[in-house]
């Protein structure tokens, strides 16, 4: 079973999916500070903290590779209890449910694209990340993080916007910001997305867990057009010359559903990961 669902899901709500459990989307707006308590400094939020913790592990790549591998094993074994953000890939159908439920929903600048490709996103036409929940009301505290703005969206607008990025080929990843609190749905690709890269290149799992789904091709419908090969950010699909069709390696598949939404003949369907005995512990 998915360990995040085990820890934070409610079996009676949405099949136990943790990110569709309203409790993980809820938070107070205000806090009474003690008289001597200073406002939090920039970079003390869970996101930045998690980034620094991963950065520290990453340093050992160069100085002590054995220790590096050991630390990654430990970080993965900590599961959600470690000081790392939890992220899980979700297909767009589930992202719709998230933006229907959470409030407010706002588009905003992606921190990975700006860091790793100097890709600035300065208005609602460029924003590629989705912020969720009451934290969005206080974005002005961290203008360097939000690059001067956020764009609040009604649920229908948010869905259209998700479609836009899905069409371009972005994977949706649901992210926590402290404990199990869901603070965003990222639209990500390799290699600029830190979470995907940390997982695919370095094996750090917590920030980019596989989704509850896995892709399956119907060979009778597949024409071998290759659209899905281009859309897969995880290298799970290749063109198989022998069959003149494409082939999906379900062990590599993250269940993002990009191949499914792109396939012109609807040859791909997403099936429940836990329905396959060989995959139900692969997250």
């Amino acid at each position: 079973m998915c360990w995040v669902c085990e820890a934070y899901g409610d079996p009676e709500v949405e099949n136990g999916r943790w990110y569709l459990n309203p409790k993980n989307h809820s938070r107070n707006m205000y806090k009474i500070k003690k008289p001597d308590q200073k406002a939090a400094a920039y970079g003390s939020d869970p996101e930045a903290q998690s980034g620094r913790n991963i950065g520290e592990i990453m340093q050992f790549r160069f100085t002590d590779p054995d220790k590096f591998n050991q630390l990654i094993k430990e970080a993965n074994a900590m599961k959600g209890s470690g000081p790392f953000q939890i992220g899980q890939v979700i297909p767009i159908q589930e992202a719709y449910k998230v933006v229907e439920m959470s409030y407010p929903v706002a588009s905003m600048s992606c921190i990975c694209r700006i860091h790793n490709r100097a890709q600035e996103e300065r208005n609602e036409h460029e924003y590629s990340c989705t912020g969720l929940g009451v934290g969005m009301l206080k974005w002005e505290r961290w203008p360097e993080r939000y690059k001067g703005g956020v764009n609040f969206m009604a649920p229908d607008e948010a869905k259209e916007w998700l479609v836009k990025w899905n069409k371009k080929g972005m994977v949706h990843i649901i992210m926590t910001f402290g404990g199990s609190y869901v603070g965003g749905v990222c639209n990500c690709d390799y290699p600029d997305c830190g979470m995907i890269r940390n997982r695919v290149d370095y094996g750090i799992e917590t920030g980019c867990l596989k989704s509850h789904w896995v892709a399956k091709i119907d060979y009778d419908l597949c024409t071998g057009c290759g659209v899905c090969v281009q859309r897969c950010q995880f290298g799970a699909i290749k063109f198989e010359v022998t069959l003149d069709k494409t082939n999906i390696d379900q062990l590599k598949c993250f269940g993002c559903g990009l191949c499914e939404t792109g396939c012109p003949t609807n040859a791909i369907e997403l099936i429940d990961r836990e329905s396959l005995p060989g995959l139900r512990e692969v997250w």
Partner: protein
Amino acid sequence: MTAPCTVPFDCKKCLQACPQAVFLVTAVKVERGKETDPKEPGAYRLFAPHRDKCTGCNDCIELCPEDAITINFPPLEA
């Protein structure tokens, strides 16, 4: 591998050209309630956190107008 560049956003050539996405740019100067000016020299800095993925293609070195990037691979062992 080092990259003492002070104006990453003005140029960003290496950041966008590297096939291995080796580079990263981040604000080293942050003031409360204020966005860091991408045009201010030295406010942002260039790092190469994924230098373990560098293939030595030298594209970045050729593109960098400031000659800010150097790459060191250990010599071939005899």
